[in-house]
């Protein structure tokens, strides 16, 4: 039994079958990549996992509980964190404040009316945020406005904001999309470091084969809304069906 079990999920947008009978099982402590050509339904699947979309049929079980019908913040409180394609951070707040918010969310839940005490009297929360910033080597930037960070640092910050919540599952939506070669290498290194140090279960949606093969333990290939194959990276590389659906399309 995996930590995330997707079974028989269908999603239709008008006449388009975006997801057709998707079954997927993500094992704890693994890095599971979901790849596929454009329009294969990768993002739709991801959105079904985090509560942004509700599948027409099928079930999505996380840690023994169904996530269907729950709102994004409720699913996050269950232990799923999400990193976006373009980093979603609080641009008007400082780096430290960006880090404090997930720590508060972790401690206090979806809403708490703590309007009188000062943020800076919450020393344990601040300490945890600072530790995490040190771990991603951003300690020198705590007072900076998050919107003024470089793209790579925004990505690091977003990742750190997710990790400080100690998620049971970290979802990454094309974490290296639009990045330069060097930034991509840095991100791979960061993700590998995170996995080795914290043993976080990750599901990655990715286009870049280089990223996928250097990170994933298992790969699911999605084509036209249906999983084609699921296997280890080595087996996927030479798989004829994958060539046909994915690499074949890439050569056109």
């Amino acid at each position, binding site marked *: 039994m995996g930590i995330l079990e997707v079974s028989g999920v269908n999603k239709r947008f008008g006449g388009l079958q975006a997801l057709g009978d998707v079954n997927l099982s993500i094992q704890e402590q693994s890095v599971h990549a979901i790849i596929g050509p454009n329009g294969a339904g990768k993002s739709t699947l991801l959105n079904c996992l985090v509560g942004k979309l509700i599948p027409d049929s099928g079930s999505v079980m996380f840690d023994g509980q169904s996530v269907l019908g729950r709102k994004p913040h409720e699913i996050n409180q269950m232990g799923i964190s999400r990193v976006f394609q373009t980093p979603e951070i609080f641009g008007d707040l400082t780096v430290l404040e960006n880090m404090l918010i997930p720590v508060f969310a972790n401690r206090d839940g979806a809403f*708490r009316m703590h309007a009188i*005490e000062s*943020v800076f009297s919450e020393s344990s929360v601040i300490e945890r945020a600072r530790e995490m910033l040190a771990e991603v080597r951003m300690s020198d930037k705590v007072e900076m406005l998050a919107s003024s960070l470089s793209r790579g640092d925004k990505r690091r910050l977003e990742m750190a*904001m997710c990790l400080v919540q100690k998620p049971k599952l970290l979802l990454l939506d094309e974490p290296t999309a639009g990045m330069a070669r060097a930034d991509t290498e840095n991100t791979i290194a960061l993700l590998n470091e995170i996995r080795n140090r914290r043993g976080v279960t990750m599901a990655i949606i990715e286009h870049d084969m280089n990223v996928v093969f250097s990170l994933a333990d298992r790969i699911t290939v999605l084509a036209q809304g249906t999983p084609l194959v699921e296997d280890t990276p080595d087996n996927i590389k030479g798989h004829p069906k994958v060539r046909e659906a994915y690499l074949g399309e890439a050569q056109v």
Partner: protein
Amino acid sequence: MLGLKKTDTTLFLVVMGLTLLAPFILNPFPVESGMAQFNAGYPDLMQRFVIFGIFAIGFNILFGLTGYLSFGHAAFLGVGSYAAIWSLKLFALDVVPAIVFAILVAGAFAMLVGFISLRRSGIYFSILTLAFAQMSYALAYSVLTPLTGGETGLQIKNTDSPLLSNVPEGEIGRASFLGLDMGASQELVLGGWAFTFNLGYYIAAVAMLIAFYLSIRIFRSPFGMMLRAVKSNQQRMNYTGLSPKPYTLAAFVISGMYAGLAGGLMVAMDTQVGPERMFWTASGEVVIMTVLGGAGTLLGPVLGAGFIKYFENIISKINKDILHQWFAVLPDGFEDVMVSLVYPFVGKGWHLTLGIMFMLVIIFLPGGLLQGGQKILGLFRRKPQPSAAAEADGTKPAE
């Protein structure tokens, strides 16, 4: 001190000093001098400064922090006023229960309006709040006449006999605080100067100081940080396990309660209410106050409120005769030219001056008058330290 950081404590003490010494500070000119008309230290106007200050501080908690622009905040002020006058008419002539009642009723009404309006954001939210306020105005004006007195509004009448107060038969009760008349004033004459200390003003001033203090606490709290997160990125908030809606609703209700407090105080100072208090221009005024002073800053809204009320009451009183006196030194023809040039901007034309000023501030000082003040302070410092100045005066201005 007071659970605030040093810079905030300083800010609070400065505001406290200015507020409590306002009767002196606002009356810098001797009574007999030609400049006496610029004196703003009379009770009626001073009360308006602090009451609208409270209104703007509360509005800023919603708009400055979450970015949700309510265009119907005058409704809460009006509802608070009606609640307060009923308390004076039926319950007691003491202003404290009236003000508490005003805050509670306005808060409950804000809860209802906020719950519905916050289903949308951006311009749709603004329009919804505007619709609610105009609806409240229309209801108060006509349908709800038994409750609101319709067009003429409500006053304390000689037939009112509040439950807890003894009003002699046939006399009109007067609002009081622990038995002291709200209108009680003490005049102090020093040389050519006259200063008036009014009980009503000091009650309103203390209320404003409490309101200001609470707003500093809210700004510096985790709750305040969450409100800024709402403004910054709701998507990230949702995916961080936080629900933006209750945070925004709480901010809406708090700011509605501030408006209720302002409305209650207005009635405590001058025991009458009319529906025009809820008209959309009144809602627009508090938006202008906040933006003019500096939205998202601690001090800005108070500054903006004072500024607008000063214009409304002082600049608007300058008439043609006064202008002729000013320019009397000039040759005859020239005098008339000057008067006709300046006249459109003063007296009834004060809105024109305010409008131009507002445009200039929006274009050149997006952080409001407060940002202007900081720039000027920066010029006088040997080493310009913009970040230090920003810290000293509250928070970063919202754009």
